[in-house]
């Protein structure tokens, strides 16, 4: 078939980056950055996930359709989380009897 065969080097270098990122995220977790701990950890996790998806799961060479479906999953999960959270975050916004009237 026309499938492109990825060289071992690519796999191994992606792997090296993944391990390095794991080490980074563990290291950063020991430094107190306040809310940034969360942001840094999640950014690293997203980068790792994208690397796995793109290289190990061959989405980089895949059709637009596969890319679409791979993206849709994360998008829909974001909808679930963001809309649910929008309720929790805005619950306290309404002070007693002072709004609107």
């Amino acid at each position: 078939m026309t499938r492109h065969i990825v060289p071992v080097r690519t796999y191994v270098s992606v792997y090296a980056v993944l391990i390095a990122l794991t080490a980074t995220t563990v290291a950063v977790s020991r430094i107190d950055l306040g809310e940034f701990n969360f942001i840094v950890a999640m950014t690293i996790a997203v980068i790792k996930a994208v690397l796995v998806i793109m290289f190990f799961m061959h989405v980089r060479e895949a059709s637009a359709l596969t890319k679409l479906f791979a993206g849709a999953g994360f998008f829909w999960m974001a909808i679930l989380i963001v809309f649910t959270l929008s309720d929790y975050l805005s619950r306290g916004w309404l002070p007693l009897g002072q709004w609107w009237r």
Partner: protein
Amino acid sequence: MAIATHNERLRHHFDTAEQQEESSTLGMWVFLLTEIMFFGGMFGAYTVYRNMYPDAFASTSRFMNITLGAINTVVLITSSLTMALAVRSAQLGVKRALILFLVLTLLLGCIFLGVKVVEYHEKWVDHHIPGPGFRYDDARYFRQAQILFFLYFAMTGMHALHMIIGAGLLATLIIMARRDRFSAAWHTPVEMIGLYWHFVDIVWIFLFPLLYLIGRTR
């Protein structure tokens, strides 16, 4: 590549091997989509409670064994690499390498599960299993901590369940490979289970920081 010789792999309702393979790949991705949403429900619950009880969360994350968690992360990422290499060997039609990498992947998967058992055992000893026997030293957070441990077990438990299923699938692949069922032209199951395995890896890539790392410094 020689496809015509492999017509016995083509199921009656497809026209071409290409169509059949594209269908499998798309089907697998749609399946992974459902998996994302399945875990998504728990990530949603996690986000809500982390936002509601940040202090309790910081407090419980101290009981997560970072060393074991990090080891497991490395183990799983390595298994992803071996899986990717297994798929590559299948694409090239190298049977011995295929089997070797599949066995390695399976082995790493089992190590992961073994470490998980150790971790669960720690929780058991500490009475950190939610339910009637739950104890938490910091009385202020007793209730919230229980919810967070509940989420910990639900998320890692579901993940481990996926790992166990994945291990079963890998074992099947190994048997199939030994029986010469795969060739450079047809090895769809290896690719599909590869995708599944990487997906399970990705879930862990998120679980690890969320459950073990964030909030540790508080």
